């Protein structure tokens, strides 16, 4: 039997979706693949097979061990086994025979080589017992674990909100080799007040939760993030916890469900190492990630499942969130406004108010009680976004426990009065007069025209109240804003627009073309061409593969009388429109014209 041949034939019959899934799952590297034979070869290549085996759990491996040592398995009645076999088939590790399943040679060889590499032998896979489970902890310090868990839950939900806010302000860059760029990692860690090590975990979970997405190399927030931000702390936690639960492999999840009153950590690792005997490093990384994220979310605290974590594993996210909500600090809807222009919420501020407050103040610290600071800049931003002195005062009066202090009141007036005194307008493509700076206050324009800071902008005064420059509007805008001039930017129609310091790419994500999809398209195209140009090409490829593999084939030949005859050949070469092969039965060398070969199949 030639595994490659039969697999190639089987691959040719798969639909696009199954093919893409198989490629995505089985081929981590990018071998050169031009047709189904190449693909079959790549899938049965030793490293690729080993890669496929490492992610299998013990029940699946035990089935493979049986197939490897005892030969094909007939379809049985065990539903679990049937499901496992089906899954192994989807991974192209075994294939259907008429009445059951057979293992590919390459897979068997790999499995049989395991004992030499320190991995379990087929016999061990079939007989080894799991490590003894630890006895459940006698008395778990529930309240302490739960309190710590709720602290973590609160902190991480807050941190995720900060993460989204920060990404909104400035997207983060993903490096070519994977992972966030160092400065972005640090920036996000600072915004979230977490260790830099925890940022990748947070990003991973945020991506799974659909809160962030990648557009090319840029990490951006999604629409779902906005909805998520509108929820209460408990609601936000619930969605993160649900995401976490979904991200945990079903088999591991089942395992965890049996360990809700036992510490994770080392004991869990031992069990998992038994359960996934060949997994090694990748599994360790996966487990570390879900453990780290569980600690982050308060599903566990110091390796012990919290009450909410237990509820999550046993009854799902809704029950867990209910448990967690009872432990989270109560939200407040009033804040203190102070003379030093700080705004302090004496507890977690309701998300809607928090969002509104952020429009007109900078966040200074996020914790149980958060501090915001109103600055000229933050007010300017709010005014640019459509707020007025009246709307700002109305909001602040509504949330303040203590009225509006005079310095803040003054600042609001000042900001409104100053806002837009200077306008910078985009004039379109005219290179010399690309941007106009104008103001009703000729004094201000005079000051700008002599200001040393703007010397490099080459501003030319064209009237009492107008300057022009060849620099872009945004450059001019930021130069003026940084120098504390009351500036607003206008588009070509004179509408006031916000200017971002660094251009973020458009938020509607451009889908990146999936490697598997591309490969399948390539295969289909190649197959179509081959079939159209030469019906013999497919046959020829099949035969070449058989020659290379030195395996016997059943070749069906059309005889001149219209009948067909099967030969069992060990092909030795294809060339000049003929197949040469040794006929074992007759013990002679045969040469068959390709055009008379009707088909080949594995014996």
């Amino acid at each position, binding site marked *: 039997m030639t595994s490659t041949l039969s697999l190639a034939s089987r691959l040719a019959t798969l639909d696009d979706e199954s093919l893409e899934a198989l490629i995505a799952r089985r081929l981590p590297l990018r071998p050169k693949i031009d047709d189904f034979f190449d693909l079959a070869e790549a899938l049965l290549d030793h490293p690729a097979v080993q890669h496929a085996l490492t992610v299998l759990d013990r029940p699946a491996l035990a089935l493979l061990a049986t197939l490897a040592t005892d030969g094909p398995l007939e379809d049985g009645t065990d539903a679990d086994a049937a499901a496992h076999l089906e899954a192994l088939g989807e991974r192209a590790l075994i294939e259907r025979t008429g009445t059951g399943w057979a293992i590919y040679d390459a897979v068997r060889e790999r499995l049989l080589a395991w004992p030499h590499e320190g991995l379990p032998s087929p016999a061990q896979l079939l007989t080894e017992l799991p490590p003894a489970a630890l006895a459940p902890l006698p008395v778990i310090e529930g309240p*302490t674990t739960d*309190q*710590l868990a709720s*602290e973590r839950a609160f*902190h991480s939900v807050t941190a995720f909100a900060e993460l989204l806010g920060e990404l909104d302000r400035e997207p983060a860059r993903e490096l070519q080799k994977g992972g966030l760029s160092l400065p972005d990692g640090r920036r996000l860690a600072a915004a979230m007040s977490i260790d830099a090590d925890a940022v990748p975990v947070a990003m991973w979970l945020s991506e799974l939760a659909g809160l962030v997405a990648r557009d090319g190399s840029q990490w951006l927030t999604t629409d779902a993030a906005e909805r998520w931000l509108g929820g209460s702390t408990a609601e936000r936690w619930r969605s993160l916890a649900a995401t976490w639960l979904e991200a945990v492999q079903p088999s591991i999840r089942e395992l965890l469900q049996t360990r809700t009153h036992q510490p994770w950590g080392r004991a869990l690792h031992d069990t998992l190492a038994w359960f996934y005997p060949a997994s090694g490093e990748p599994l360790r990384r996966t487990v570390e990630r879900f453990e780290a994220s569980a600690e982050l979310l308060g599903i566990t605290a110091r390796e012990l499942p919290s009450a909410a974590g237990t509820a999550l594993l046993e009854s799902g996210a809704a029950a867990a969130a209910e448990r967690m909500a009872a432990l989270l*600090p109560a939200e407040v809807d009033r804040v*203190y*406004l*102070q*003379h*030093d*222009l*700080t705004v*302090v919420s*004496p*507890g977690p501020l309701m998300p809607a108010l928090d969002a509104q407050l952020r429009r007109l103040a900078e966040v200074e*610290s996020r*914790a*149980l*009680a958060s501090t915001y600071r109103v600055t000229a800049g933050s007010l300017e931003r709010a005014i640019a976004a459509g707020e007025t002195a009246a709307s700002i005062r109305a909001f602040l009066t509504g949330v303040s*426990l*203590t009225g509006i*202090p*005079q*310095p803040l009141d*003054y*600042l609001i007036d000042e900001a409104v009065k100053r806002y837009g005194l200077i306008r910078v307008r985009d004039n379109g493509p005219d290179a010399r007069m690309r941007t106009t700076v104008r103001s009703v206050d000729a*004094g201000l324009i*005079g*000051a*700008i025209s*002599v*200001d*040393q*800071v703007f010397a490099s902008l080459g501003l030319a005064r064209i009237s009492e109240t107008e300057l022009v420059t060849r620099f872009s509007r945004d450059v001019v805008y930021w130069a003026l804003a940084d120098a*504390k001039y009351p500036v607003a930017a206008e588009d070509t129609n004179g509408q006031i627009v916000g200017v971002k310091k660094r251009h973020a790419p458009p938020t509607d994500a451009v889908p990146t073309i999936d490697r598997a999809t591309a490969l399948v398209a390539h295969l289909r195209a190649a197959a179509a061409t081959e079939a159209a140009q030469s019906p013999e090409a497919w046959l020829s490829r099949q035969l070449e593969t058989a020659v290379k593999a030195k395996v016997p084939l059943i070749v069906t030949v059309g005889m001149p009388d219209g009948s067909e005859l099967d030969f069992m050949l060990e092909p030795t070469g294809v060339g000049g429109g003929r197949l040469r092969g040794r006929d074992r039965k007759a013990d002679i060398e045969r040469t068959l014209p390709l055009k008379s070969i009707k088909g080949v199949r594995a014996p």
Partner: protein
Amino acid sequence: MADGPLIVQSDRTVLLEVAHPNAEDARHDLAVFAELERAPEHIHTYRITRLGLWNARAAGHRAEDMLATLERYSKFPIPQSVAVDVRETVERYGKLVITRDEEGQLILQSSDHAVLTEVASAKRIAPLLPHRVDERTYAVEAWARGALKQELVKLGWPAEDLAGYTPGTPHPIDLRQDGWHLRDYQNKAVENFFAGGSGVVVLPCGAGKTLVGAGAMATAKTTTLILVTNTVSARQWRDELLRRTSLTEEEIGEYSGQIKEIKPVTIATYQILTAKRKGQYAHLALLDALDWGLVVYDEVHLLPAPVFKLTAELQARRRLGLTATLVREDGREGDVFSLIGPKRFDAPWKEIEAQGFISPAACYEVRVDLPPSERLEYAASADDERYRLAATAPAKLDVVRSLVKRHEGERILVIGQYLDQIEMLSDALDAPQLTGATSVDERERLFQKFRTGEIKVLVVSKVANFSVDLPEATVAIQVSGSFGSRQEEAQRLGRLLRPKESGLSANFYTLVARDTVDQDFAQNRQRFLAEQGYSYTILDSTSLDAIAA
């Protein structure tokens, strides 16, 4: 307590909601171990620091008491990390004890073998410990008492110093309480100081730190060395001691750049102590000139670094530090803790203010519009010139005039940074000026005239900032000044915080050129003053009439 006045945050800050009915009790208990960082009107921020915890431990408080305080008043559960941290940190204090053996030799002892071994093997500590006496004891080099304490604090294992003090040469000193007496908190400060050995008393400007010093001297009744920041301050100490104690002029000596007397009570400046001749400290002999039984450090937060080194060798003498703040701009709070001693007394400013001993100052920021010509000049100038231009804008002069007029009859300090501006202000206001160039005698004469009311307006430069009592000033107008330094702001406001006999409330004005760098710096000032709990109002120079007189 659910819904208490405190919010304990995981970064070890503690917020206090001032309006809460239990706020006062909570503040009182919290101040034992947490440092007040900011006190704007509604929410005060305290920070639980290692030194704060050790200070509390030194005063006999246990971690359980501190955590109980937090739990009693906290609105939300105490973050676990904070609880663990507090316990761990507090336990570290007193694990090590510096004391003397039967022969009077210094030893370092600990009941914790592991800790003792750990610190003794530290690179910077090993040379200070010549040999191990037994399982729990190391001998300490006779000269190394201060250095050892410094290093131990750095390692996070502060030692309790029970090695005692030399009594000093006895000298009779009594308080002359005729028509006045020490206030309760001053008595309490003296009492705590003696109970603790050495250490620091923290009191706001104007709360009578000098009297606490005098009280301590009258208790110790021994020869005393007083270290102060400058000569003017030295003379104020002398005058105050003559007025309040039984000491006579013959018993008090001044050791400064001008005069070098050594008497039973000697007042020396930090400057003279750190003066070098040919690379050597020239006046070190002063420290051993007499058998001082008490050393008083005025304004401990300004103690120059070399004096720390000298103080490390003065550990056998009882040391009293006086200051308005433990915060040092150079971050050497740990050295104050290890070399002068733990905090022995601390009264929050506002509390003392509420007792009526210091009058609250109202702070105003007056925004001055630059006329177009000045505005253009400002815009056209280079960055490094801009601050000076904004600070010295002539437009400020009219505002100063109008403020002086508004407060006619009160005693007014006009404060500037630039000599030519001071000159101009002095001319324009027809008021004497006092700068670094003014001689000590002239300075004293001017201050004296100002106190008596002969002079109403005084234009001063930075020199007036430190340690000078001008109790009669009720108005300060800051026209220009260096910026960003919290200490300077505190000093400046301290001028106005002294108890007022006139009953007038104090006003502090800063003039700021609008839309200039001046305004940026003013922002820091506003923040700092508001954080200290002062009201702060921003005014336009054009609407000065709005100021409540």
